[in-house]
């Protein structure tokens, strides 16, 4: 799993970490049932605060991509499989949008507009994050 962060970027560090993990899942490099390295392990490697990594993991948990279990760490859910399936169609859509002169930012805004307000599935909401 590759995580990269840019200290000069506009996006907050936790969002960058979450985006890296999301990209790994979408690319199929991180599959259902696989365990993410613990936040304690990642934080010193990236030179960030432990809570920044935990924040990123919580966001991924809220998106339904990972489960956080006390003592078991962060596990990729079966949503990963569906994300990979969807990715091919999305790539198609991005290509068509580009052909029509619609950039990725516009496309992302369009998708966000189409989706209902609270899209984040939270089937594991009651569970508390692992420290």
């Amino acid at each position, binding site marked *: *799993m*590759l*995580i*990269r*962060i*840019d*200290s000069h970027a506009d996006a907050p560090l936790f969002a960058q970490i979450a985006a890296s993990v999301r990209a790994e899942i979408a690319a199929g490099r991180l599959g259902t049932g696989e365990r993410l*390295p613990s936040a304690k392990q990642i934080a010193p*490697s*990236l030179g960030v605060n432990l809570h920044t990594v935990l924040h990123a993991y919580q966001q991924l948990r809220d998106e339904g991509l990972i489960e956080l279990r006390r003592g078991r760490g962060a596990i990729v859910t079966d949503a990963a499989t569906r994300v990979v399936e969807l990715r091919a169609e999305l790539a198609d859509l991005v290509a068509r949008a580009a052909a029509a002169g619609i950039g990725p930012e516009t496309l992302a805004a369009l998708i966000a507009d189409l989706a209902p307000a609270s899209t984040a599935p939270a089937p594991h909401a009651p569970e508390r994050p692992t420290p």
Partner: protein
Amino acid sequence: MTRHPADPRRRFLIVALLAPIALALVAAVVQLVMLPNPDATVAVHWDFSGTPDGFGPAWSFPVLTVALGVGLPALLSGTALASDRAAARREGRPTAPTANSRFVAAMVLATVAFLSVLSTVLVAAQVTGPGQATAGAGLPLLAAAVAALACGLAGWWVQPRVTASPVEGEAAHALDLRDEETAVWVRTATMSRLPLALLVGAALFTVALGVALVATGAGAGGWITLASGAVVTLLVATGTAYRVVVDNRGLTVRAFAGVPRWHLDPGGIRAVEVVFVNPTGEFGGWGWRWTPGRFGVITRAGEAIQVTRTSGRQFVVTVDDAETGAAVLQAVVDRARQAGPRE
């Protein structure tokens, strides 16, 4: 008479296959000749003080000698040959025994020599000795060990030296890491599923057996089994799964138990490559492996990150998606090089 250079492959087959099988057959024949009555009951097992505690029919000695003397060479030389062939095919060169086939062959011969001499001396001691079935196992063990050492050394020197050329892989392409960027690459390297399941199963079984024996009051036997179980568990915990981390601090490989742990500083790294590892052919097996100038943490065959230190020594770890890991490491090494020595 002109001397032709030895054919390594032929020598390998002689040492790994023909010699041990011939040795075992001779030993079995000698045992059969010595045994007046193959159905007689003899000692076949000894406890730690060397007193026999297990008895069986005399024919079990020649039968075991032949079974192991033929089975071991066939199995191990077959495995070594297959792995040599696979490596040769991959690298597009003619098949030739590797440095480790030489070692495997010598080990096979030594093992078979040990077993053959041990069983033969045990039979001889029981046939001729005054105590017959109560003969001890101390002297036979010593004789067998000496024979094994002699045969192993002979088997090693009979085979031609295989020059180990430095292994060259594909140089890593550095990840396009900007100055303000930080990256970490984490990957778990484990043995493939079947051997891992077998090892974990063996560990659990031995511990369970030990607990059961101790609970039923089997005494020393139970504790010895339990201790063996603990050793197997320790080996599984330290030798089957590793976390491979590449970050600003370099390459770190850590067993799941926490120890052992290997760390390579980016400043001490000369080159990063992706290589294809053939465990038996290049390292003589799995686990923590030393060969001249090269150390490997080997969990399986296949892609691996190979790091050459500034001293010229190489460190290899088998891991999936080695290409990405190597790319991150190369970027980190490049960055350390640009920054120059810090002190």
